[in-house]
């Protein structure tokens, strides 16, 4: 009797272990997913009984300018942010992949934006993006001192060239980036720039404060891009988003960099490869799989961007920041008017399909998903 009980117990074990997870998974994912799919073909409004309307919602979506705006915003956002954050994450990882003292501190410091909540970061950024905010102030400074900085840099390059060329004419083998000359050039260039400024030959430009509306504007940037231009508030969110996600992806890249065999670099050095050649012909191809992973994760994450739009809220016009995820929320809880659950669900399904397409493309390019763990 006891034996049979325990064998029954053994058979039930997997289901016992899984049941708490399955409870949530079935009700709050599977059922919810199917129900959303069903709602997308109805005219449900949270209160009355849903009526089947076929694909009317999907057609309606593409006729609605707010939705097409959201779709366009989401796609632009996903593509630009993913591209830039992948590049920055790689470059940052290469810089961070050094064996020098204190590197751990820097890795920790850089990771801070990634662990903080979206609301904290977005609030700080809204504050910085105010008309009289930090970002506009830094731009003003750049505008005022642009000439001075330009003169300094020109002097720097000029002096360095002069030093190197005179040495070369004397027949000494020096490189263009000879360290001691760089130090000398920096000192000379600083002194000359300072003197020029002191004698009033160059002055900071008396420019008005830069007054860019980062959030409360319908303007599109870049202005020359025509139909490809995106609203400036969306650009502000892009900056914010890149800033928060670069550190996370940098850590993935760092793990990848440490896995590249040193032999490859040594062989390349024997063949006389320069720094950037090693980067381009060894580092980049070796990190191919990680890059694929990062691009996929980036696209999935950016397509779902919601928090920043909600938090910026009234600070920017709705059309300038709306994304697919926000469109879904906005249609379901529009505030004063009647909820349009049918439309919301249809938009949500489109968002899901877009995400799945991204994943599918990745699977096709990489073959089996197991490759990702390399």
């Amino acid at each position, binding site marked *: 009797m006891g034996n049979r009980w325990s064998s029954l117990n053994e058979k039930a074990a997997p289901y016992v272990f*899984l049941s708490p997870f399955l409870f949530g998974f079935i009700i709050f994912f599977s059922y*919810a997913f199917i129900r959303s799919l069903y709602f997308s073909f109805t005219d449900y409004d949270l209160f009355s009984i849903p009526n089947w309307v076929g694909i009317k919602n999907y057609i309606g979506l593409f006729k609605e300018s707010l939705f097409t705006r959201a779709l366009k915003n989401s796609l632009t956002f996903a593509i630009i942010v993913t591209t830039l954050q992948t590049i920055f994450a790689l470059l940052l990882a290469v810089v961070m992949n050094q064996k020098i003292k204190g590197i751990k501190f820097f890795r920790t410091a850089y990771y801070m934006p990634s662990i903080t909540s979206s609301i904290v970061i977005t609030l*700080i950024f809204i*504050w910085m993006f105010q008309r009289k905010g930090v970002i506009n102030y830094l731009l003003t400074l750049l505008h005022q001192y642009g000439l001075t900085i330009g003169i300094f840099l020109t002097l720097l390059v000029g002096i360095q060239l002069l030093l190197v060329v005179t040495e070369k004419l004397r027949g000494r083998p020096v490189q263009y980036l000879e360290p001691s000359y760089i130090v000398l050039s920096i000192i000379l260039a600083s002194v000359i720039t300072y003197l020029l400024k002191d004698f009033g030959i160059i002055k900071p430009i008396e420019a008005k404060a830069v007054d860019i509306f980062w959030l409360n504007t319908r303007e599109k940037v870049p202005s020359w891009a025509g139909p490809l231009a995106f609203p400036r508030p969306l650009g502000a969110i892009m900056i914010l988003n890149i800033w928060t996600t670069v550190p996370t992806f940098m*850590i993935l890249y760092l793990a990848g960099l440490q896995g590249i065999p040193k032999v490859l670099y040594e062989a390349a050095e024997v063949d006389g490869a320069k720094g950037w050649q090693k980067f381009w012909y060894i580092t980049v191809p070796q990190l191919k799989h990680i890059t694929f992973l990062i691009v996929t994760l980036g696209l999935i994450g950016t397509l779902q961007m919601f928090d920043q739009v909600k938090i910026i809220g009234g600070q920017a016009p709705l059309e300038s920041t709306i994304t697919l995820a926000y469109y879904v929320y906005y249609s379901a809880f529009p505030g004063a008017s009647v909820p349009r659950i049918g439309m919301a669900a249809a938009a949500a399904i489109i*968002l899901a399909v877009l*995400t799945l397409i991204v994943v599918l493309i990745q699977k096709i390019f990489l073959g089996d998903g197991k490759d990702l*763990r390399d």
Partner: protein
Amino acid sequence: MKIQQNYNSDINLKIKRRRWINVGAIYLILLLFSVLFMGTFLFGAMSSLKDNPSEWPPTLKTEQLSLKNWIGAYTLARQGGGSGFFGALKSGHEVSLQITYKYPMGIEIIPPEVIIPKRFAGHGAAALDLDKEFVADFVTIKPIEEINRVSNKDGILISYKITIVNISQKDFNELPMDLKVPHKVKFVKVTLAPNRIERLGMSQSWNNLVSGVIPYIFHNHFRVFNENYSRSTGKRLFTTWIFNSLFISIIKVITTLTFASMAGYALARLKFFGKNYLFVFILFSMMIPGQVTFISNYLVLRDGVFGFTKLFGGGSLLNTFTGLIISGLVGAAAVFIMKQFFEGLPQEMEESARIDGASTYQIFSKIMLPLAKPALGALTILTFQGAWNEFFWPLVVLTSPMDKFTLTVGLLSFKNTYASGAFDWGPILAGAIISALPIIILFFVFQRYFVEGVSFSGIKG
């Protein structure tokens, strides 16, 4: 031979120089990036101390961080009868401060006019509390003494001593003050820097002369706690939100650890019908955005999980923590992490335990769980961080009353609370910094787990 030697030492020197310049350049780049990644936070944190974080031009100079003002705030609070770090204006105590003005040549010398205004520091309900008594009705201002006068070629510097006495039997903890001077008279220095200088420098105002050092430095942070009260219970909202977030996050960590390790173990080691399909389905679910499922989940909670809660006398689960917790007991990603971890463990111990007659339940609790400590550690951090930072789902579920908010949703409400006309950025920034602190502290203590968490969840794609 000599030439050869020279050449060698030349090469060595060159290599040394290059290495030195390279390391220098790398440190420089690292430092620049630090300014970018950390500077934003630090500048935000610093500005949250300021009286006006939106000042133009933005500066790093913060009155609240100057030693001179700390000493000033301490002395004034001590004079008022407080401890110095926290202040008061007790019965019979007198508070005096020194202020210096510069009178340009040809301007008639009139000492500043001292006003104790009938106002309370702050905003909203705290400032409109009608039962409070104005300190202005209980103090007298002593005649202003001139204590020093220095003339130089473009004006006269005059220092005054202003003394205020609490002549009543009551104790106060607030003493606002305004000073008014004629046009063109310049304010030079004072014991404690004024909170505002208005009307082209003709008026200097202090919110509270006797606040004490700590409330002086963190006055925006105190405002966050002191100015937001619940309408129904009268409790401090911000404190409530912190405890709400803490409560929900801790419960979530417990349920996630328990259920994810159970499900992960079953998926990794046990045989059951449809295992592979279930796993693929879990992977699928991790890619579906929350916006797809939230409509149905909202309805499920509204109807009390198919009316189930009504059996226990409950109603709708919207605006309840039960609803928020029950809909997020364990995430698919957590199950995935635990599955991957258990798959990587050696099978021998398990097999020998089974030969000794241990049941699956015993193997799980006595052998596998103790082995899973590193993964559980990373998962704890990851879950806590996720729950603390979660925004979308609490925003949908918790809409009223404000007592029910989590910290993230509560912070969003600050955008309405502190936006009458222009934004009052002080408390908004202060609230944001306070709410980020627990995670930042956690991060510095458990760095390793955070990084492991990234590589774990990075695999999921």
